[in-house]
């Protein structure tokens, strides 16, 4: 709870922001006191990040007012917001990897010495106080690229601390951190709070928000659903106000795990980065979720199915016969599909047409003697466009002109045309709206019902709980839990995410 004596640090009134006709933030009131940690939660696309970017001066609001220390502010960029005392710790680290820790920390605030030259002695004093303040001992001359992610996070915080802001915005700071590292971060947050700073804490992890916040604001579809002090919230209330409906309205009915169904796929290998064995099997028609904290080897594991992950001594069995999957072409020959996370960089050919995108991995299937059977290809593509209700004006339209949801459908659509036996999806609903999300959930369930083995890696806790028949939790490159049925709960998943015990050969049938 904010102290009675604490003064209002930030106040926003009636903020509206529209992008290309879509309203991202619709008349939001928001405030933050000195000495307060204010949790901000909401689904992807709820408008949290836009609101924070408005505070940071990256976006200017269409209407509405911002007051800092009671003074109205209009920022024309981050540098102005920074001068007014706003500091942002970004979710995607904004460090320059090829500069040293020290250079990163003082980036943009270069302290000057004699003759306007940069004073390295001043820089060293600043760095010393900053790094001591957050309790880290890092050699300031070390390159950022050589540091592990958790340490980089601290350097990022140090970089913001060096600017001595009054108001801190932490945008999903715990995403790459383990539980111990989260505890250290929380200690830093409490220190800042004691020193009378205002802190806005954005996170997807419900339990963390409940643990650290003094007040919580829930956003949904660009509006504030509720702002209240922590004592008014519990886990269930927070979830239901976030998604605005119950789970069963979003996710199609699960099929559950049936031990009598044939095992389609068995994976056994060692992720090179972690050096630990992973072994598990997936049955036909089962949706298997892969969860855990970020960066625990999930993506490497998913890539390994497709021959592009770093995995040693990989033994992959499909229908009990070993298959070789050293590259995507071989993996595809065995009916394996892989849908990567990053649509723009790994999923969609932005400059190619909708047709070329949807037909990309079935070119050979629709051609004879090297010549493409255009009519056949066209009708297959057209069917898929109708099945997924992809919104386009023409099949010759360039993919880059589509919305995020439609791009994601292009990626999924091309693999549906491929007709896989095993499909591996990484973050299939990242950055798409709720309606498209629901469509994707239904598609995934349909695939499973048709006997496909579906493996989904997602950082969205609700998806793991609502969509998956089985959830495997990964931690430090191996599986620490394999949950089925009623056992799939946030508590159990989080527990396994930070557990130090490994379980080997979970559910393996060899």
């Amino acid at each position, binding site marked *: 709870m904010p102290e009675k004596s604490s003064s209002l640090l930030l106040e926003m009134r009636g903020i509206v922001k529209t992008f290309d006709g879509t309203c991202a933030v619709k008349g939001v009131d928001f405030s933050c006191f000195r000495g307060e940690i204010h949790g901000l939660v909401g689904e992807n696309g709820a408008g949290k990040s836009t609101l924070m970017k408005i505070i940071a001066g990256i976006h200017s609001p269409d209407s509405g007012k911002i007051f800092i220390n009671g003074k109205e502010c209009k920022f024309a960029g981050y540098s102005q917001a920074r001068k007014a005392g706003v500091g942002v710790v970004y979710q995607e680290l904004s460090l320059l990897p090829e500069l040293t820790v020290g250079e990163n920390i003082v980036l943009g605030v270069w302290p000057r010495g004699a003759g306007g030259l940069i004073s390295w002695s001043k820089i060293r004093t600043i760095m010393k106080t900053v790094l001591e303040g957050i309790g880290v001992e890092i050699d300031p001359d070390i390159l950022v690229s050589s540091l592990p992610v958790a340490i980089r996070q601290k350097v990022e915080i140090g970089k913001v601390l060096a600017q001595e802001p009054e108001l801190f915005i932490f945008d999903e700071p715990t995403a790459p951190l383990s539980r111990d590292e989260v505890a250290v971060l929380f200690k830093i947050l409490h220190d800042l709070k004691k020193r009378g700073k205002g802190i806005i804490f954005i996170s997807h992890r419900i339990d963390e928000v409940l643990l650290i916040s003094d007040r919580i604001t829930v956003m949904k579809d660009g509006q504030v659903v509720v702002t209240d002090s922590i004592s008014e919230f519990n886990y269930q209330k927070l979830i239901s106000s976030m998604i605005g409906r119950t789970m069963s309205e979003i996710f199609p009915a699960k099929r559950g795990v049936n031990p009598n169904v044939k095992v389609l796929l068995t994976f056994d290998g060692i992720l090179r980065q972690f050096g630990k064995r992973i072994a598990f099997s997936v049955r036909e028609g089962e949706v298997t979720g892969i969860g855990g904290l970020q960066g625990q080897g999930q993506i490497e594991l998913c890539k390994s199915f*497709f021959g*592009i992950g770093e995995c040693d001594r990989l033994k992959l069995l499909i229908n009990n016969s070993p298959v070789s999957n050293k*590259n*995507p*072409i071989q993996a*595809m020959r065995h009916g394996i599909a*892989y849908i*990567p996370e990053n649509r723009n*960089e*790994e*999923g*969609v*050919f*932005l*400059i*190619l*047409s909708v047709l*070329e995108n949807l*037909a*990309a*991995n079935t*070119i*050979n299937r629709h*051609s004879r003697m*090297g*010549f*493409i059977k*255009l009519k056949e290809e066209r009708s297959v593509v057209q069917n898929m466009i109708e099945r997924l209700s992809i919104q386009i*004006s*023409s099949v*010759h*339209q*360039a993919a880059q002109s589509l919305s995020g949801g439609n791009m994601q459908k292009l990626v999924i659509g*091309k693999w549906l045309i491929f007709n896989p036996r095993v499909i591996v999806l990484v973050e299939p609903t990242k950055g798409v709206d709720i309606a498209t999300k629901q469509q994707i959930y239904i598609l995934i369930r349909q695939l499973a019902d048709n006997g496909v083995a579906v493996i989904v890696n997602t950082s969205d806790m609700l998806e793991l709980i609502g969509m998956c028949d089985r959830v495997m939790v990964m931690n430090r490159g191996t599986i620490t839990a394999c949950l089925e049925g009623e056992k799939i709960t946030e508590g159990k998943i989080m527990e396994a995410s930070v557990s130090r015990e490994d379980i080997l050969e979970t559910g393996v049938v060899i």
Partner: protein
Amino acid sequence: MTEKYKNLQLFLPVYIIFLLIYVVASFIEPTFFTWNNNVNLFTRITPLVLIGIAQTFVILTGGIDLSVGSVIGLANVIAVSLPFVGTPGNVILWFLVPTLIGLAVGLINGFIITRGGFPPLIVTLAMGVVWQGVSLFILSEPGGKVARGVSLYVTGKLFNFLPVPLLIIILAIVVFQLVLRRTAFGRSVYAIGGNETIASESGIPCNRTKIWVYGLSGFLAGLVGLYLSAWMSSGDPLIGDPYVLNSIAIAVIGGTSLAGGTGGVLGILGGAYIWQLLNNILNLMAVSMFYQYIAKGLIIIIALAATASAGGIRIGAIFRKFGIKGVK
């Protein structure tokens, strides 16, 4: 313009500019519009079209082939140095040896680029120097001869009417347009230029396709070397030098983006014509060689500015690129 006519949008401006230059030239120089002069033009632009197509394929994959000039020179000196050049009976060998050597040289380029993971710019530049050396070793100064009669392949007319070069041009553009748009190979070329990572994760054989693209480039360069030997009736190891710049200029003027993935061969004829006519006009106006180089370089920069924004040539884009506003 609707998406359906995207190709038209991409290539139409090239032909409008070509027609403009053509009409203006016809008014200035009355003999320009005669059939004889046009046949002469066909003969001159055929090698430009062929080498433009070669470079277009490579650029579509996101690469570049700087060795085309040297390969043209190599094929050219081989065509005039073969021991049997004097005998008309060996026309097939005369045709096959230089073009197959061109193909082999191109495949080697592709192999080094894909296996080594090296940038095409450096590999083809370096290999170009290698083949330049080989050409000079075979024939250190202009000379040699071709079999009597083979020059008919360049100057002759089919059925006493259709000039052979025109036939080559039409065939080349039709065939390679089909290859690009209707074959799995062509689709793969666009996919690789669009995004090689996604292409490889879509099961497209990227390395194999790229090796064959450089092979095709070498093959067409070999064909150009052969054509030049028949046209000139002699060989010159340095004859290919201008074709490096020519091929890139024609591909870019023809509407292909240097970033890869967009463009095609339909604009090549217009590109080759514009390039050749500009050369002719500069010559007719008796512009000094030095100024011609300056002009050509600037024309490529302007063409780049016009094609750099995806979706075809836009004149307004040139002005916008250089910060001049208000031109559509």
